[in-house]
């Protein structure tokens, strides 16, 4: 019989919530960093700078098409061979940032492409430089269009942090494993609690995204 009452003791629930806070911490840091790097990479790819845009585009395509789990392994077990040995949480953040930057770069690029080319041309004709036109005219319009895609990428980032349990990052999934590892009768209750915690965070974000999208349209 599954032991729901003992599984949901305050000590266990608190431990799961601590895991959830690490999950959120890693997700937020990674998404902020990825947003910055992703914007730069996306704009560079869009700008068609000779060679540079092609090379960056290829790197984006390669990393986007690899499993995140492989990148986590590579960062945590592979980088020490180059004399850099990150701790578990920084390793998770680094791996997530590398992967998500590429995903966000593609979102940014397609967002920019969705802005009418006339906006850029008109700004250039008014005497703005490419950078000015991008910053003041094109990007503000592009980011508005991208909000749903960016939020759903953020949701998958939050879900993907669970993969970091393989390098024993103390996030929600790992804390869950510790709790149900004590007793097989905790398995179902703990999974229900974990699923609920992930669901609440992710679903709230998706509702928020729908709301913002609805208000802007």
């Amino acid at each position, binding site marked *: 019989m599954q032991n729901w009452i003992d599984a949901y003791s305050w000590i266990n629930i608190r431990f799961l919530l601590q895991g959830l806070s690490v999950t959120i911490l890693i997700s937020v840091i990674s998404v902020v960093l990825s947003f910055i790097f992703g914007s730069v990479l996306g704009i560079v790819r869009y700008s068609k700078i000779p060679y540079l845009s092609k090379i960056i585009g290829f790197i984006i*395509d*390669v990393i*986007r*098409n*690899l*499993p*995140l*789990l*492989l990148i986590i*392994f*590579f960062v945590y*077990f*592979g980088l020490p*061979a*180059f004399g850099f040995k990150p701790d578990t949480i920084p390793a998770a953040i680094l791996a997530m940032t590398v992967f998500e930057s590429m995903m966000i770069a593609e979102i940014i690029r397609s967002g920019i492409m969705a802005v009418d080319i006339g906006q850029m041309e008109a700004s250039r004709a008014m005497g703005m430089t490419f950078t000015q036109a991008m910053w003041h005219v094109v990007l503000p319009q592009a980011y508005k269009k991208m909000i749903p895609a960016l939020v759903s990428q953020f*949701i998958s980032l939050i*879900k*993907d942090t*669970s*993969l970091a*349990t*393989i390098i024993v990052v103390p996030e929600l*999934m790992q804390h*869950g494993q510790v709790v*149900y590892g004590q007793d*097989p009768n905790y*398995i*179902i209750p703990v*999974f229900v609690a*974990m*699923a609920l915690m*992930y*669901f609440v965070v*992710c*679903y709230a974000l*998706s509702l928020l995204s729908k709301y913002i999208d609805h208000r802007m349209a």
Partner: protein
Amino acid sequence: MINLLSSNWHAFISGFGWTLLSSVLALFFSLIIGSLFAILEVVPSKILRIIGNVYVEVFRNIPLLVITMFFYLVIPLYVVKINGFTAGTIGLTIYTSAFIAETVRAGINSVDIGQMEAARSQGMTFWQAMRYIVLPQAFKYVIPPLGNQFVNLVKNSSVLAFVAGFDLMYQGNAIASQTFETVNTYIIVGLFYLVITLPISYYMQHLERKLA
């Protein structure tokens, strides 16, 4: 790197095979389940719509790893003993079916409502109209996103490594820990994934541009 590849060729190829098999099986079953739930989301019955909606929202907002580990640990406890490959493929199927349901629903909604109305006015039932008129048109719009879902599936199948599913990632880890050639092993594993994912995602980009 060539040495590493040739001396572990068998393990890499068998991992590649299991990864591919798991992805194809999961795609097949999640297409069926996903389409069913997509139709549930657009039927006239309110109860069925709610069921479809709840299924999609629940499984889209829970990590794949949680779903997979749940099946891996719980099915053997109450139902039958299953191996990691089966549990992993079931997890992948359920997770992906929620995303496919969303994709197919968007496809159905993009078919002009007049098509359904015209079919109904000709005396077809809702299901006949769906089956013969709406779905065939919807699938055309849905092919590029479905291709992208398959790419995601191949990448996501790496969670099989958590449940000893003998897939590419699992084999890669085994080889890395035997040979200590971590960097080279992971590069080779990455190349094996890219062999499947890169061509498909480039082809889907091409299709998207053609349809647009």
